[in-house]
Protein backbone atom coordinates (compact mmCIF):
# COMPACT_ATOMS: atom_id res chain seq x y z
CA UNK A 1 0.00 0.00 0.00
CA UNK A 2 1.25 3.50 -0.88
CA UNK A 3 1.63 5.72 2.19
CA UNK A 4 -1.56 7.87 2.37
CA UNK A 5 0.39 10.86 3.70
CA UNK A 6 3.00 10.65 0.93
CA UNK A 7 0.23 10.04 -1.58
CA UNK A 8 -1.64 13.14 -0.37
CA UNK A 9 -4.59 10.94 0.67
CA UNK A 10 -5.04 11.96 4.31
CA UNK A 11 -8.75 11.61 3.67
CA UNK A 12 -8.29 7.82 3.77
CA UNK A 13 -6.70 8.07 7.22
CA UNK A 14 -9.54 10.33 8.43
CA UNK A 15 -12.08 7.82 7.12
CA UNK A 16 -10.14 4.99 8.75
CA UNK A 17 -10.14 6.76 12.14
CA UNK A 18 -13.86 7.45 11.93
CA UNK A 19 -14.60 3.85 10.89
CA UNK A 20 -15.90 4.84 7.47
CA UNK A 21 -13.80 2.53 5.32
CA UNK A 22 -14.58 -0.92 4.01
CA UNK A 23 -13.13 -3.96 5.78
CA UNK A 24 -10.44 -4.67 3.13
CA UNK A 25 -9.39 -0.98 3.17
CA UNK A 26 -9.33 -0.99 6.95
CA UNK A 27 -7.09 -4.08 6.99
CA UNK A 28 -4.70 -2.49 4.48
CA UNK A 29 -4.45 0.79 6.44
CA UNK A 30 -4.01 -1.11 9.72
CA UNK A 31 -1.10 -3.05 8.22
CA UNK A 32 0.47 0.11 6.81
CA UNK A 33 0.12 2.07 10.06
CA UNK A 34 2.13 -0.57 11.92
CA UNK A 35 5.08 0.02 9.58
CA UNK A 36 4.76 3.78 9.01
CA UNK A 37 5.58 5.98 12.05
CA UNK A 38 4.20 9.11 10.36
CA UNK A 39 0.81 7.55 9.66
CA UNK A 40 0.83 5.93 13.10
CA UNK A 41 1.29 9.32 14.73
CA UNK A 42 -1.46 10.82 12.57
CA UNK A 43 -3.89 8.02 13.45
CA UNK A 44 -3.09 8.28 17.15
CA UNK A 45 -3.75 12.03 17.23
CA UNK A 46 -6.86 11.80 15.06
CA UNK A 47 -8.30 9.07 17.27
CA UNK A 48 -7.61 11.27 20.29
CA UNK A 49 -9.61 14.06 18.64
CA UNK A 50 -12.39 11.64 17.78
CA UNK A 51 -12.56 10.34 21.36
CA UNK A 52 -12.34 13.85 22.81
CA UNK A 53 -15.30 14.94 20.68
CA UNK A 54 -17.27 11.97 22.04
CA UNK A 55 -17.01 13.55 25.49
CA UNK A 56 -19.25 16.38 24.35
CA UNK A 57 -22.77 15.13 24.88
CA UNK A 58 -25.60 17.46 24.01
CA UNK A 59 -28.04 18.79 26.56
CA UNK A 60 -31.51 17.23 26.61
CA UNK A 61 -34.29 19.04 24.77
CA UNK A 62 -36.65 20.98 27.03
CA UNK A 63 -40.03 19.34 27.54
CA UNK A 64 -42.10 22.24 26.22
CA UNK A 65 -40.22 22.56 22.92
CA UNK A 66 -43.09 21.10 20.85
CA UNK A 67 -45.74 23.14 22.67
CA UNK A 68 -43.83 26.37 21.97
CA UNK A 69 -43.31 25.39 18.36
CA UNK A 70 -46.97 24.57 17.75
CA UNK A 71 -47.94 27.86 19.39
CA UNK A 72 -45.69 29.67 16.92
CA UNK A 73 -47.15 27.66 14.04
CA UNK A 74 -50.69 28.57 15.13
CA UNK A 75 -49.62 32.20 15.33
CA UNK A 76 -48.08 31.97 11.86
CA UNK A 77 -51.31 30.49 10.48
CA UNK A 78 -53.18 33.53 11.80
CA UNK A 79 -50.84 35.95 10.04
CA UNK A 80 -52.41 38.10 7.31
CA UNK A 81 -51.77 37.15 3.68
CA UNK A 82 -49.19 39.89 3.09
CA UNK A 83 -47.09 38.69 6.03
CA UNK A 84 -47.19 35.15 4.61
CA UNK A 85 -46.18 36.50 1.21
CA UNK A 86 -43.01 37.82 2.83
CA UNK A 87 -42.10 34.26 3.80
CA UNK A 88 -41.74 33.39 0.12
CA UNK A 89 -39.26 36.18 -0.48
CA UNK A 90 -37.51 35.92 2.90
CA UNK A 91 -34.80 33.51 1.62
CA UNK A 92 -33.74 36.19 -0.86
CA UNK A 93 -33.31 38.73 1.94
CA UNK A 94 -31.47 36.18 4.08
CA UNK A 95 -28.66 35.86 1.55
CA UNK A 96 -25.48 37.33 3.06
CA UNK A 97 -24.48 38.68 -0.35
CA UNK A 98 -27.72 40.65 -0.74
CA UNK A 99 -26.44 43.92 0.77
CA UNK A 100 -23.45 43.71 -1.57
CA UNK A 101 -25.68 43.04 -4.56
CA UNK A 102 -28.01 45.88 -3.54
CA UNK A 103 -25.06 48.26 -3.16
CA UNK A 104 -23.71 47.20 -6.58
CA UNK A 105 -27.12 47.72 -8.20
CA UNK A 106 -27.40 51.19 -6.65
CA UNK A 107 -23.90 52.13 -7.80
CA UNK A 108 -24.49 50.79 -11.33
CA UNK A 109 -27.89 52.50 -11.50
CA UNK A 110 -26.33 55.72 -10.27
CA UNK A 111 -23.59 55.42 -12.87
CA UNK A 112 -26.11 54.88 -15.67
CA UNK A 113 -28.26 57.75 -14.42
CA UNK A 114 -25.21 59.96 -14.38
CA UNK A 115 -24.23 58.79 -17.88
CA UNK A 116 -27.74 59.58 -19.09
CA UNK A 117 -27.40 63.09 -17.75
CA UNK A 118 -24.08 63.48 -19.50
CA UNK A 119 -25.63 62.18 -22.72
CA UNK A 120 -28.58 64.52 -22.32
CA UNK A 121 -26.22 67.46 -21.83
CA UNK A 122 -23.88 66.54 -24.70
CA UNK A 123 -26.27 67.80 -27.46
CA UNK A 124 -25.83 71.25 -25.97
CA UNK A 125 -22.19 71.17 -27.06
CA UNK A 126 -22.94 71.00 -30.84
CA UNK A 127 -25.67 73.54 -30.19
CA UNK A 128 -23.08 75.80 -28.64
CA UNK A 129 -20.86 75.28 -31.65
CA UNK A 130 -23.84 75.93 -33.90
CA UNK A 131 -24.59 79.14 -31.99
CA UNK A 132 -21.03 80.28 -32.31
CA UNK A 133 -21.06 79.40 -36.04
CA UNK A 134 -24.30 81.35 -36.46
CA UNK A 135 -22.86 84.29 -34.59
CA UNK A 136 -19.80 84.31 -36.87
CA UNK A 137 -22.02 84.30 -39.96
CA UNK A 138 -24.07 87.15 -38.54
CA UNK A 139 -20.96 89.18 -37.78
CA UNK A 140 -19.65 88.51 -41.29
CA UNK A 141 -22.95 89.55 -42.80
CA UNK A 142 -23.05 92.67 -40.65
CA UNK A 143 -19.51 93.56 -41.71
CA UNK A 144 -20.54 93.03 -45.33
CA UNK A 145 -23.55 95.27 -44.73
CA UNK A 146 -21.35 97.95 -43.13
CA UNK A 147 -18.90 97.66 -45.98
CA UNK A 148 -21.76 97.98 -48.47
CA UNK A 149 -23.20 101.01 -46.63
CA UNK A 150 -19.73 102.48 -46.52
CA UNK A 151 -19.51 101.93 -50.30
CA UNK A 152 -22.92 103.62 -50.79
CA UNK A 153 -21.76 106.48 -48.61
CA UNK A 154 -18.59 107.01 -50.63
CA UNK A 155 -20.57 106.76 -53.89
CA UNK A 156 -23.05 109.33 -52.58
CA UNK A 157 -20.23 111.66 -51.58
CA UNK A 158 -18.66 111.26 -55.04
CA UNK A 159 -22.02 112.07 -56.63
CA UNK A 160 -22.46 115.19 -54.46
CA UNK A 161 -19.03 116.68 -55.32
CA UNK A 162 -19.82 117.80 -58.93
CA UNK A 163 -23.14 119.33 -57.91
CA UNK A 164 -21.39 121.43 -55.16
CA UNK A 165 -18.72 122.59 -57.63
CA UNK A 166 -21.41 123.87 -60.02
Amino acid at each position, binding site marked *: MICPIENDD*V*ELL*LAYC*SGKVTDPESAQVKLHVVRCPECASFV*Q*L*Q*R*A*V*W*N*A*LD*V*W*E*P*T*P*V*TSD*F*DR*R*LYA*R*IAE*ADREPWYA*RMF*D*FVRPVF*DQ*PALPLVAATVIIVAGFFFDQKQVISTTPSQPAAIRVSVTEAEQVERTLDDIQMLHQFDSDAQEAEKPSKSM
Partner: protein
Amino acid sequence: MGASTALDLDAQLMLRVKDGDGASFGLLLEKHRSPVIHFLYRMVQNHAISEELAQEVFLRVYKSRNTYEPTAKFTTWLFRIATHLALNWLRDGKNERKQERLDDDLDGRPRLQVSDRKPSVEQSMVYKVKLDEVRSAVASLPEKQRAAVLMHKYHEMEYSQIAKVLNCSESAVKSLLFRAYESLRSSLAHMA
Protein backbone atom coordinates in the same frame (compact mmCIF):
# COMPACT_ATOMS: atom_id res chain seq x y z
CA MET B 1 -42.59 3.46 -9.44
CA GLY B 2 -39.33 5.28 -10.25
CA ALA B 3 -39.37 8.79 -8.81
CA SER B 4 -41.71 8.21 -5.88
CA THR B 5 -39.87 5.13 -4.58
CA ALA B 6 -36.55 6.93 -4.93
CA LEU B 7 -37.78 9.56 -2.46
CA ASP B 8 -36.61 9.12 1.09
CA LEU B 9 -39.24 8.57 3.74
CA ASP B 10 -38.81 12.06 5.13
CA ALA B 11 -39.44 13.61 1.73
CA GLN B 12 -42.58 11.53 1.41
CA LEU B 13 -43.73 12.73 4.82
CA MET B 14 -43.02 16.31 3.80
CA LEU B 15 -45.10 15.85 0.65
CA ARG B 16 -47.94 14.68 2.90
CA VAL B 17 -47.48 17.80 5.01
CA LYS B 18 -47.76 19.74 1.75
CA ASP B 19 -51.11 17.98 1.19
CA GLY B 20 -52.28 19.20 4.60
CA ASP B 21 -51.38 16.21 6.79
CA GLY B 22 -50.38 17.71 10.13
CA ALA B 23 -49.57 14.32 11.65
CA SER B 24 -46.74 13.83 9.15
CA PHE B 25 -45.23 17.10 10.32
CA GLY B 26 -45.39 15.70 13.86
CA LEU B 27 -43.49 12.60 12.73
CA LEU B 28 -40.81 14.70 11.06
CA LEU B 29 -40.50 16.83 14.18
CA GLU B 30 -40.22 13.77 16.40
CA LYS B 31 -37.48 12.28 14.23
CA HIS B 32 -35.37 15.38 13.62
CA ARG B 33 -35.95 17.53 16.70
CA SER B 34 -32.97 16.24 18.68
CA PRO B 35 -30.42 16.08 15.83
CA VAL B 36 -31.26 19.65 14.78
CA ILE B 37 -31.12 21.03 18.33
CA HIS B 38 -27.90 19.16 19.09
CA PHE B 39 -26.27 20.43 15.91
CA LEU B 40 -27.34 23.99 16.68
CA TYR B 41 -26.25 23.65 20.30
CA ARG B 42 -22.74 22.61 19.26
CA MET B 43 -22.66 25.42 16.71
CA VAL B 44 -23.74 28.28 19.00
CA GLN B 45 -22.86 26.66 22.36
CA ASN B 46 -25.88 28.09 24.08
CA HIS B 47 -28.80 25.84 24.95
CA ALA B 48 -31.55 28.48 24.93
CA ILE B 49 -30.38 29.96 21.64
CA SER B 50 -30.07 26.53 20.03
CA GLU B 51 -33.71 25.75 20.88
CA GLU B 52 -34.82 29.15 19.68
CA LEU B 53 -33.04 28.62 16.36
CA ALA B 54 -34.41 25.07 16.08
CA GLN B 55 -37.94 26.47 16.51
CA GLU B 56 -37.23 28.83 13.63
CA VAL B 57 -35.94 25.91 11.53
CA PHE B 58 -39.11 23.87 11.99
CA LEU B 59 -41.30 26.91 11.58
CA ARG B 60 -39.62 27.62 8.22
CA VAL B 61 -40.10 23.99 7.22
CA TYR B 62 -43.79 24.27 8.04
CA LYS B 63 -44.18 27.59 6.25
CA SER B 64 -42.40 26.25 3.17
CA ARG B 65 -44.67 23.20 2.91
CA ASN B 66 -46.69 24.62 0.00
CA THR B 67 -43.62 25.27 -2.12
CA TYR B 68 -41.68 22.17 -1.05
CA GLU B 69 -40.17 20.11 -3.87
CA PRO B 70 -38.16 16.98 -3.01
CA THR B 71 -35.14 17.96 -5.08
CA ALA B 72 -32.68 16.86 -2.37
CA LYS B 73 -32.68 14.66 0.72
CA PHE B 74 -34.96 16.08 3.40
CA THR B 75 -32.15 16.11 5.98
CA THR B 76 -29.94 18.05 3.57
CA TRP B 77 -32.63 20.71 3.26
CA LEU B 78 -33.26 20.71 7.01
CA PHE B 79 -29.59 21.07 7.91
CA ARG B 80 -29.17 23.70 5.26
CA ILE B 81 -31.79 25.84 6.99
CA ALA B 82 -30.27 25.08 10.41
CA THR B 83 -26.73 25.89 9.27
CA HIS B 84 -27.88 29.07 7.59
CA LEU B 85 -29.60 30.28 10.77
CA ALA B 86 -26.67 29.31 12.97
CA LEU B 87 -24.12 31.04 10.74
CA ASN B 88 -26.31 34.16 10.60
CA TRP B 89 -26.64 34.17 14.38
CA LEU B 90 -22.89 33.77 14.86
CA ARG B 91 -22.10 36.51 12.34
CA ASP B 92 -24.68 38.89 13.79
CA GLY B 93 -22.91 39.36 17.09
CA LYS B 94 -20.24 36.86 17.82
CA ASN B 95 -18.04 39.25 19.76
CA GLU B 96 -20.69 39.99 22.36
CA ARG B 97 -21.68 36.37 22.67
CA LYS B 98 -18.26 34.75 22.71
CA GLN B 99 -17.85 34.83 26.46
CA GLU B 100 -21.46 34.04 27.21
CA ARG B 101 -21.33 30.99 24.95
CA LEU B 102 -18.50 29.28 26.76
CA ASP B 103 -19.91 30.02 30.18
CA ASP B 104 -23.41 28.98 29.24
CA ASP B 105 -25.43 26.20 30.88
CA LEU B 106 -22.60 24.10 32.23
CA ASP B 107 -24.92 22.99 35.00
CA GLY B 108 -27.61 21.90 32.61
CA ARG B 109 -25.54 19.42 30.61
CA PRO B 110 -25.76 15.67 31.12
CA ARG B 111 -23.06 14.26 33.34
CA LEU B 112 -20.55 11.69 32.19
CA GLN B 113 -21.81 8.23 32.93
CA VAL B 114 -18.65 6.36 33.87
CA SER B 115 -20.57 3.61 35.58
CA ASP B 116 -23.97 3.08 37.13
CA ARG B 117 -22.68 4.76 40.24
CA LYS B 118 -22.65 8.51 40.67
CA PRO B 119 -19.34 9.96 39.37
CA SER B 120 -16.94 11.13 42.04
CA VAL B 121 -16.04 14.80 42.48
CA GLU B 122 -12.68 14.12 40.86
CA GLN B 123 -14.27 12.39 37.86
CA SER B 124 -16.71 15.26 37.47
CA MET B 125 -13.89 17.79 37.57
CA VAL B 126 -11.81 15.88 35.03
CA TYR B 127 -14.86 15.62 32.80
CA LYS B 128 -15.57 19.33 33.15
CA VAL B 129 -12.00 20.26 32.22
CA LYS B 130 -12.06 17.92 29.21
CA LEU B 131 -15.42 19.20 28.06
CA ASP B 132 -14.33 22.83 28.35
CA GLU B 133 -11.26 22.08 26.26
CA VAL B 134 -13.29 20.34 23.58
CA ARG B 135 -15.87 23.15 23.50
CA SER B 136 -13.16 25.80 23.29
CA ALA B 137 -11.34 23.90 20.54
CA VAL B 138 -14.53 23.57 18.49
CA ALA B 139 -15.53 27.18 19.18
CA SER B 140 -12.17 28.40 17.92
CA LEU B 141 -12.74 26.84 14.49
CA PRO B 142 -13.94 29.10 11.69
CA GLU B 143 -17.74 28.79 11.35
CA LYS B 144 -17.83 26.72 8.15
CA GLN B 145 -15.14 24.34 9.40
CA ARG B 146 -17.09 23.97 12.63
CA ALA B 147 -20.30 23.15 10.78
CA ALA B 148 -18.49 20.64 8.56
CA VAL B 149 -16.86 18.87 11.52
CA LEU B 150 -20.11 18.69 13.47
CA MET B 151 -22.01 17.23 10.53
CA HIS B 152 -19.18 14.78 9.81
CA LYS B 153 -18.54 13.67 13.38
CA TYR B 154 -21.93 13.79 15.11
CA HIS B 155 -24.36 13.34 12.23
CA GLU B 156 -22.24 10.97 10.14
CA MET B 157 -22.96 12.81 6.91
CA GLU B 158 -21.15 11.99 3.69
CA TYR B 159 -18.95 14.60 2.04
CA SER B 160 -21.50 14.99 -0.75
CA GLN B 161 -24.29 15.78 1.70
CA ILE B 162 -22.16 18.23 3.71
CA ALA B 163 -21.26 19.88 0.41
CA LYS B 164 -24.94 20.34 -0.43
CA VAL B 165 -25.70 21.72 3.03
CA LEU B 166 -22.82 24.19 2.86
CA ASN B 167 -23.45 24.93 -0.80
CA CYS B 168 -19.90 24.14 -1.87
CA SER B 169 -18.02 21.42 -3.74
CA GLU B 170 -17.00 18.09 -2.26
CA SER B 171 -13.35 18.99 -2.59
CA ALA B 172 -14.04 22.18 -0.62
CA VAL B 173 -15.62 20.06 2.13
CA LYS B 174 -12.58 17.76 2.18
CA SER B 175 -10.37 20.82 2.52
CA LEU B 176 -12.57 22.28 5.30
CA LEU B 177 -12.49 19.00 7.22
CA PHE B 178 -8.76 18.53 6.72
CA ARG B 179 -8.01 22.01 8.09
CA ALA B 180 -10.53 21.66 10.93
CA TYR B 181 -9.17 18.30 12.11
CA GLU B 182 -5.64 19.63 11.76
CA SER B 183 -6.52 22.48 14.17
CA LEU B 184 -8.26 20.07 16.53
CA ARG B 185 -5.32 17.65 16.50
CA SER B 186 -3.09 20.52 17.47
CA SER B 187 -5.35 21.88 20.23
CA LEU B 188 -6.43 18.51 21.64
CA ALA B 189 -3.16 16.60 21.14
CA HIS B 190 -2.52 16.41 24.88
CA MET B 191 -5.69 14.38 25.32
CA ALA B 192 -4.17 11.46 23.38
